[in-house]
């Protein structure tokens, strides 16, 4: 495994430079180093953002974080293991599952001295957030699950191959499966081809009337380019998810105020996943949005409004 180190030349969108920030390197229980930062004042209401698979924490847009800070939050985002500046791992030697990634999220909270936080998980980050909520409910004030599922197996079987699981939930749409299989069978050979494949992949994660936010995608890809020192390590996330069991039964035991948000046009985890998740978690609120799997740069306002209002509502009741 290797430790990522900050590179002075790395590009980070600091368009919200006036915000108070505190970088923090986190040591995980299994000895990895994770990059994290708190945005906003230390006495803000803590809110932890857990990004989806294969992407560093910077994919949470600066403007999105700034709006949460303006609503009174201290926002914490981090590079998951095998992304960004955080440690990368030789998966064959040190395999891991979503349980270790949930332990990482807890370690991030501890490193920032946060006893209790609202937790927002996107896609695979939502899998991690579910496990964190089950293992350490005392550390969460509210749970927001965005474009995620209690059962990743249909997605994994469709994209990685293998037997279709006995699941009540559908796999991704064929256009996305085709993209993944094409990229795997014919990996991009040049930097330009890689960027083209990334743009195509991101575009497929969007949907709904807002369309594909090309400018946002290009800005985001430029911001994270070079931040992943070992880009192929991010594929370990797929291995970790594939090695993890579903949570169909487990999530019924989540005992936290929970908001499930899901795009009506999600091609990766179709809307049935969000509806199923909300139905399984006792008392969960479901919000179906006019968007695809990704919201960043396309549906930020609605997602922000829902998070800000939901978390504030829980805080007012506690």
């Amino acid at each position, binding site marked *: 495994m290797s430790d990522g180190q900050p590179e002075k030349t790395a590009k980070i969108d600091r368009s919200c430079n006036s915000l108070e920030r505190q970088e923090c390197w986190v040591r995980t229980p299994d000895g990895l180093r994770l990059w994290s930062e708190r945005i906003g004042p230390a006495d803000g209401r803590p809110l932890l953002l857990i990004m989806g698979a294969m992407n560093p924490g910077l994919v949470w847009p600066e403007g999105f974080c700034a*709006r949460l800070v*303006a*609503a*009174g939050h201290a926002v914490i985002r981090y590079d998951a293991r095998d992304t960004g500046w955080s440690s990368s791992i030789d998966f064959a030697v040190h395999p891991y599952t979503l349980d270790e990634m949930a332990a990482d999220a807890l370690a991030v909270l501890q490193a920032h001295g946060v006893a209790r936080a609202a937790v927002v998980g996107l896609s695979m980050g939502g899998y991690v957030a579910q496990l964190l909520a089950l293992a350490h409910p005392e550390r969460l004030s509210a749970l927001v699950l965005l474009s995620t599922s209690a059962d990743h197996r249909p997605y994994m079987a469709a994209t990685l191959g293998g037997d279709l699981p006995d699941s009540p939930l559908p796999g991704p749409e064929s256009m996305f499966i085709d993209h993944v299989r094409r990229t795997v069978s014919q990996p991009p050979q040049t930097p330009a081809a890689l960027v083209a494949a990334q743009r195509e992949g991101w575009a497929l994660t969007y949907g709904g009337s807002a369309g594909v936010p090309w400018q946002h995608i290009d800005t985001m890809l430029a911001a994270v380019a070079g931040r992943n020192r070992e880009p192929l390590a991010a594929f370990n996330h797929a291995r970790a998810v594939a090695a993890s069991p579903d949570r169909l039964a487990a999530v019924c035991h989540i005992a936290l105020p929970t908001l499930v948000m899901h795009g009506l046009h999600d091609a990766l985890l179709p809307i049935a996943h969000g509806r199923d998740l909300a139905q399984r978690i006792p008392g969960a*609120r479901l*919000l179906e949005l006019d968007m695809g799997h990704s919201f960043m740069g396309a549906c*930020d*306002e*609605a997602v*922000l*409004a*829902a998070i*800000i*209002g*939901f978390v*504030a*509502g829980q805080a*007012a*009741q506690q």
Partner: protein
Amino acid sequence: MQIQATQHNDTANLRLNGRFQFDSHREFRAAYEQVLSEPAVRTLVLDFSGVDYLDSSALGMLLLLKEKAGAVGKSVELAGTHGAVRQVLDVASFARLFKIS
């Protein structure tokens, strides 16, 4: 956004006009701080009938106002909400936090 303040007995009314968004924060804060400093005021009513757009930063401003008003024993109500403004408030479940009409 333009803001017009009036007061009747223990109720102050801030009539908002225009788009309530991030660049409104200075004028909004100045208006409500004036009202919150009035000892006779017990209730602050924000009249949204002239507002046709509200973004997530405005939600943050409303939460901050609620907190500040609560700290000095005053309540905040939202009135005249309609259309897109009402939709945003619904998405944010603000009816759990404010009296809305």
